[in-house]
């Protein structure tokens, strides 16, 4: 089935043949090539538009979420100031001053002082009883002292010292208790609750604004379409 002599002759003569195309053939091809070249960049722009719109949505989304976070922080600070300021009692004023002073001192020292104060508080409750006992004991001792005057001289200064110390401790304890009362967790909880409530209200209002604008636009479009259909 291989090509024979005649077929080889056919092949040779046909492969050597040349037919010139018409003069406008190149112009047609040139126009087709130009159209093809113009089409290519359009496709690229289409992809670029899609990518740009996607990035735009992404940017809007990030801005939206980051904005809400910032608002929450700001409002927290505002509410804290509001909670501290409106109670103008003298005791709390003192406490507030203490609060402002505390950060300048080392925390470990504060903790140590507070623990000491608490211990003293407990000991005061004992010590408040103790002077009575002491006084009773003193009475007893004074009664005994009538019998033995050497003991009486040693006991009286101790009682005076203990009274002075107990008074100081009571003052410190009172101040600390008032300070503890001011930094009570119950007030903090209230502030958080208020904050969350306020935040929720503000977020809702922001969303509502968006919903309102969308609804307004939708209604305007709807009315415009209805008018157009009527016309």
């Amino acid at each position, binding site marked *: *089935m291989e*090509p*024979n*002599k*005649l*077929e080889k*002759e*056919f*092949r040779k*003569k*046909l*492969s*050597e*043949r*040349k*037919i*010139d*195309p*018409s003069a406008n*053939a*190149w112009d*047609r*091809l*040139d126009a*087709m*090539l130009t159209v*093809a*070249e113009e089409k290519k960049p359009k496709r690229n722009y289409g992809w670029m538009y899609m990518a740009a719109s996607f990035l735009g949505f992404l940017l809007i989304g990030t801005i939206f979420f980051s904005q809400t976070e910032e608002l929450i922080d700001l409002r927290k600070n505002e509410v804290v100031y509001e909670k501290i300021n409106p109670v103008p009692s003298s005791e709390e004023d003192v406490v507030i001053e203490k609060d402002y002073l505390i950060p300048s001192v080392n925390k470990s020292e504060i903790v140590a002082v507070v623990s000491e104060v608490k211990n003293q508080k407990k000991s005061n409750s004992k010590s408040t009883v103790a002077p009575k006992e002491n006084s009773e004991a003193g009475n007893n001792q004074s009664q005994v002292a009538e019998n033995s005057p050497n003991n009486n001289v040693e006991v009286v200064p101790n009682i005076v010292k203990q009274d002075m110390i107990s008074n100081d401790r009571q003052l410190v304890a009172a101040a600390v208790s008032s300070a503890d009362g001011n930094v009570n967790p119950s007030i903090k909880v209230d502030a958080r609750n208020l904050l969350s409530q306020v935040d929720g209200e503000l977020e809702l209002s922001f969303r509502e604004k968006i919903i309102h604008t969308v609804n307004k636009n939708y209604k305007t479009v709807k009315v415009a379409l209805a008018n157009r259909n009527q016309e």
Partner: protein
Amino acid sequence: MKVINLHQEEYEIIRLAVENNRQAQQMIYNRFSPKMLSVCRQYIKDIQFAEDLLITAFMKVFVNLKNFEHKGSFEGWIRKIMVNECISYIRAQKKISFLEEEYYKEDGFNNIESDFNVNEIQFLIDTLPEGYRMIFNLFVIEGYKHHEIAGMLGINEGTSKSQLSHARKMLQEQILKLKNYGNGTE
């Protein structure tokens, strides 16, 4: 040296044409279009349709030029695109239907000797039906093997062989007619 220069020149022109340099593209077109229109004419009787196919095929050449790997002949690569374009066109027109038959026989085509000019050869080929002409062109002129033709046209190898056998037989009859007509016996 001359061959190397020619090769380098062709390489450079192709590179420029890939970059949509219109001058380079026109140079390729001017160099190969007469030969390629001859190829298209083998398959398509109407020279206008053949030219349309030439333009469409050249368009594909320039679009796919970046895929040309400089491994074989550039002319052969363009020729292949031309042939494929012609086959696609004929198949799209549904002008051919191959009868699936495995039977074929060798004929006595070898005995005929002639001295036809190219126009006479084209005339003889044009007398063949579309299917026969296509397989005759692919096998005899382009040099494809039967299994390649079967793959290109989506037919059995046997069908390709039988179609070629029929084409040869018909061509033989036409040649004899032409000879007798030339000798004045008919």
